[in-house]
């Protein structure tokens, strides 16, 4: 019997990507607050190297990286596998994590009394847990192992939300925890049904099982909404705005940029890799409807917010919507390979550029709140004069969200729009355009305040070191820089895709 998975060279990198942050979290627990930050920075550096090496290995070999844990072949054991899309996610995660780490170091360093206190120490440990969970989501091939990964994310993300210890953030965290748990439960139930029907939870083995009974339908119908609850797609976004707005800036950045992408990624895998074509088409339609509603509805909500962080949080819900309209645009479920389409590339770019831009934006908002003492948009008149770099960051990140050239967001929306035009999905094209307009509105509202001349000039509560301002700026510049990528389907995203369902490689 040929094994389901043949380990490839460099596969151990995937284990490292998952275990390195986890080990760092353990080390932090043992070594105590005084060494936490140092351990974190070492882990961030090593993690970045691992992500880089994974990318190089993938490009060099041209096939997916595979590792079989403990050499126990699925279905009994668990395999890790990283194709082009996974590696892209690993890389984006590493970049945003590294930036967040540097940002947090500077931010916590502003107040030396608390830099090894409760908030900072908990933050670093939870951040590592988050990273481990994210990486596992992107590489695991086993649905139950993915459940553990989702729980890693939940347990690390929820306490991050209420680190500042105020009552309202407790409420936000509790709401987040309970809704995320509800999602996990649905997911787990679906996984149980799949095991009952297929006797395995390995994605590749399930995908290559020929017959699909009602168990598959019901399992997917449970798992996809469960994951949607964690991704906070409209109308399941109840927990996101208060949670992401209440978290410390560095935490908001990773939560908004990365954490909600993990369930989205899993939905993608379920729909594209597991679901039978008929179900995939139905799921694609439903998800696109929800995605479009999310774009329109939550953009309007973002436009109406009075607090900067709440506005950014609603914008996250809106921007996530674009990832879901990819399904019909990429032709998921119609028998063609979706990963070769421009919509697939557009979706991947949207995901990447949103991660970079949103992290930059939340960090910028954090700097504004730190320097000025509040984040009421109305009273921020002239913040561009006192924090020019932060205002620039906000503007550049805003360009990407609006989809204005030259930015990653523009290329992404341009590709999606092209796919919509070619495919004749007029309503999706109009949604993309309207979403861009509304995003323009909410970004403009803030930039207008930034450039305004207030009656009495804003005063900084405390000086903001240049390094702190530079970190989000670099992220925003990266988001804009993605706009110089070629307007064509990426080869990278297709590596390892076609053989996803093959039993014998």
């Amino acid at each position, binding site marked *: 019997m040929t094994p389901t998975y043949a380990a490839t060279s460099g596969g151990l990198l995937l284990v490292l990507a998952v275990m390195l942050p986890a080990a760092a979290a353990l080390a932090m627990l043992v070594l105590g607050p005084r060494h936490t930050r140092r351990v974190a920075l070492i882990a961030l550096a090593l993690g970045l190297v691992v992500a880089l090496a994974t990318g190089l290995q993938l490009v060099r070999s041209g096939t997916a990286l595979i590792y079989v844990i403990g050499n126990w072949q699925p279905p*009994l054991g668990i395999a890790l596998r990283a194709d082009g899309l996974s590696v892209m996610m690993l890389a984006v995660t590493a970049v945003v994590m590294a930036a967040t780490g540097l940002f947090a170091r500077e931010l916590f360093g502003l107040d030396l009394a608390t830099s090894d206190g409760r908030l900072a120490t908990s933050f670093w440990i939870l951040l590592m847990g988050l990273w481990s969970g994210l990486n596992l989501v992107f590489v695991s091939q086993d649905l*139950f192992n993915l*459940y*553990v990964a989702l*729980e890693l994310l*939940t*347990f690390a993300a*929820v*306490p991050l939300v*209420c680190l500042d*210890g*105020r*009552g*309202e953030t*407790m*409420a*936000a*965290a*509790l*709401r987040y*925890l*309970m809704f995320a*748990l*509800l999602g996990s*439960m649905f997911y*787990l*139930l679906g996984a*149980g*049904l799949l*095991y*009952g029907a297929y*006797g395995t939870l390995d994605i590749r083995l399930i995908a290559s099982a020929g017959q699909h009974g009602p168990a598959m339908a019901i399992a997917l119908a449970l798992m996809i909404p469960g994951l949607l609850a964690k991704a906070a797609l409209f109308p399941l976004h109840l927990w996101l705005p*208060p949670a992401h707005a209440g978290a410390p800036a560095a935490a908001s950045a990773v939560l908004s940029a990365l954490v909600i992408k993990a369930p989205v990624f899993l939905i993608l895998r379920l729909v594209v890799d597991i679901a039978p074509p008929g179900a995939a088409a139905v799921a694609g339609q439903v998800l696109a409807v929800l995605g479009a509603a999310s774009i329109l509805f939550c953009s309007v909500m973002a436009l109406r917010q009075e607090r900067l962080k709440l506005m950014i949080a609603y914008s996250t819900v809106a921007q996530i919507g674009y990832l879901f309209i990819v399904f019909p645009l990429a032709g998921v479920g119609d028998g063609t390979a979706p990963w070769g389409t421009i919509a697939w590339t557009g979706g991947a770019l949207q995901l990447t550029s949103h991660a970079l831009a949103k992290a930059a934006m939340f960090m910028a908002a954090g700097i504004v709140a730190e320097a000025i003492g509040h984040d009421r948009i109305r009273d921020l008149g002239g913040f561009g004069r006192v924090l020019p770099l932060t205002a620039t960051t906000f503007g550049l990140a805003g360009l990407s969200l609006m989809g204005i050239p030259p930015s990653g967001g523009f290329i992404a929306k341009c590709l999606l729009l092209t796919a919509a035009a070619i495919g004749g999905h007029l309503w999706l094209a109009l949604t993309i355009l309207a979403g861009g307009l509304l995003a323009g509105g909410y970004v403009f509202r803030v930039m207008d305040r930034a450039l305004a001349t207030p009656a009495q000039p804003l005063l900084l509560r405390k000086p903001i070191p240049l390094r702190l301002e530079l970190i989000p700026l670099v992220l925003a510049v990266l988001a804009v820089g993605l706009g110089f990528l070629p307007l064509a389907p990426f080869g990278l995203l297709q590596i390892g895709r076609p053989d996803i369902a093959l039993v014998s490689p």
Partner: protein
Amino acid sequence: MSAMALTSASLFGLCGAALVGIGLFCIVSHPDLLRRIIGFNILGAGIFLVFGAVARRGAAMELGGDPVPQAMVITGIVVAFAATALAIALLRRLASLTGSATFEAPAAPPRSEP
């Protein structure tokens, strides 16, 4: 596998299905947060029973059931406990800080239109 084990497995599977429904109902519609947390545990119990039914159906080789889903349930129970503990710690802190045990925002005051 004996017909008896099959019947028993199906019976507990159905019990799991019923508990899932009851747990969900409790989570969605009960106003008390502590009761919702118990609802999560009932929902979890129902899900684990479905796993248990699957395991029992897979009995073979003198084993009473398929060990893989059984092991998953053990992992799941521990995770569910951790979730309950975290939720309760949050709830207690929320109550201490705000004096109320609810996370719904108070009814939004009418906005003053500019």
